[in-house]
């Protein structure tokens, strides 16, 4: 009997430890990894609603998977409508999804462009080592669709897990070219950005979905992104406005 009583005590103590954390009122934002600079800028501003928010960045697909698995998130910003549609279909979301920014897909090459890469066609050259994002990640889907539409047959040496990983491989000089978001290419002085010829380019929409019920702070965050402060921060980092 004593054993059971002690076990019960131990378990209830452990349970109490666990519930203590949930009273924390930090608002949690999941965002596509290409938004890291913008949201970090905002959260450094004391007047911003993002100041003090818990920010988590990863590919939109893995963020959406975490939300479906029950991660306690107030706001998710995805680089692809597909993930938001999936979340809504799964019964998530306490507001209508909203487009907060736009981006485009470009080619990042080494500064000085030593291989003279100027178009999607050049990516199929055998002397060009190419990195792309993996199919399944939004950037990977956009890249694949863009290359297919332009009838360019490429053989990448690696399919990276997200946009930043592709960029890192270009910056480190491990590949000659990478297909990345324009904002990622602009964020680094170590790469040169090659825009895609008109007609072949794809446009990327960032969509935000509020996930928590009646959390005023999540509403505030969304309003700020669509308001002056948010839109200025996005424009400063090279995003197109909705």
């Amino acid at each position, binding site marked *: 009997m*004593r054993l059971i009583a*002690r076990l019960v005590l131990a378990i209830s103590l452990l349970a109490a430890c666990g519930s203590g954390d949930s009273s924390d009122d930090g608002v949690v934002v999941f965002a596509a990894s290409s938004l890291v600079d913008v949201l970090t800028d905002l959260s450094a501003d004391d007047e911003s609603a993002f100041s003090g928010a818990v920010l988590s960045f990863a590919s939109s697909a893995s963020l959406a*998977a975490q939300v479906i698995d029950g991660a306690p998130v107030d706001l998710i910003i995805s680089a692809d409508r597909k993930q938001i549609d999936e979340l809504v279909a799964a019964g998530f979301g306490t507001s209508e999804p909203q487009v907060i920014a736009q981006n485009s897909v470009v080619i990042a090459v080494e500064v000085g462009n030593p291989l003279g890469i100027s178009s999607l066609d050049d990516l199929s050259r055998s002397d060009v*080592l190419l990195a792309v994002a993996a199919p399944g990640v939004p950037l990977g889907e956009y890249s694949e669709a863009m290359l297919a539409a332009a009838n360019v047959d490429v053989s990448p040496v690696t399919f990276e897990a997200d946009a930043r990983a592709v960029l890192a491989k270009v910056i*480190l*000089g491990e590949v000659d070219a990478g297909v990345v978001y324009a904002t990622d290419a602009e964020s680094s002085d170590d790469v040169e950005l090659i825009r895609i010829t008109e007609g072949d380019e794809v446009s990327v929409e960032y969509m935000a979905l509020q996930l928590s019920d009646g959390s005023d702070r999540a509403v505030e965050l969304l309003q700020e992104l669509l308001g002056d402060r948010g839109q200025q921060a996005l424009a400063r980092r090279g995003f197109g406005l909705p």
Partner: protein
Amino acid sequence: MSRRHRHDARTPIVILSLGIVAVAFFVLPLVALAIRVPWSSSFDALGNDATIEALGLSVATSLITTVLAVIFGVPLAWLLARSNMPGRQTIRGLCTLSMVLPPVVAGVALLASLGRRGVVGQILDDWFGVRLPFTMPAVIVAQLFVAMPFLVLTVESGFARSSTTVEEAARTLGATPWYVFLRVTIPATRPAIVAGAVLTWARALGEFGATITFAGNFPGATRTLPIATYLALETNVDDALLISMLMVVLSLVILVALRGRWVGAIGGAR
């Protein structure tokens, strides 16, 4: 380990309850994984070529890594345990640091040294046209870098524990140092070598961070099972669960198979 030391009735309650919590902590995720796995569709996903390819690559690379770790790690462990080499502490620290580094950092360090623009990689490229990143050898290099320390440390403590009397006897009988090492020292340390090799193999099989950073992700060349699992999470969670279960079963089978033969070795303590 004999039976008469196991007096369950006298086990202190604190130890018992904390021990039970620890067991639950390890078992729960495995059980939960088994529950979540969509068994009905398992044959589709496991029969799919991409998974088989990743499985083959993982098994092949981790085994090659283990063999290389033994070839280079055992001599290193001997130097650390038995020689009078100056700066042994520093060397031990340097050679086992990769074990505690975040694997992604290990991957970046490998790119900085063996990448196309790396200190040594540049020379390999210019002189021999050899480029490691994004190739299967790069997967092995990444695994070796993070996993070999497990072998080195285990074998080093094996060398340190084993008595040197037999070795001295062999030497007085006229055996050469190399003969003593091969025929006396190694057999005496075999349990530690096996234990270290198993730990290294397990670490290599599960390697993710250094691999995806240094070797990238290419089907058939560098996409190992852990990388396939991670990417499947982005596209098809059911596939990810199945591949995870496959890895659990694979690891379990090997550990159980080894336990039958070499459990004393893996326990290690004498």
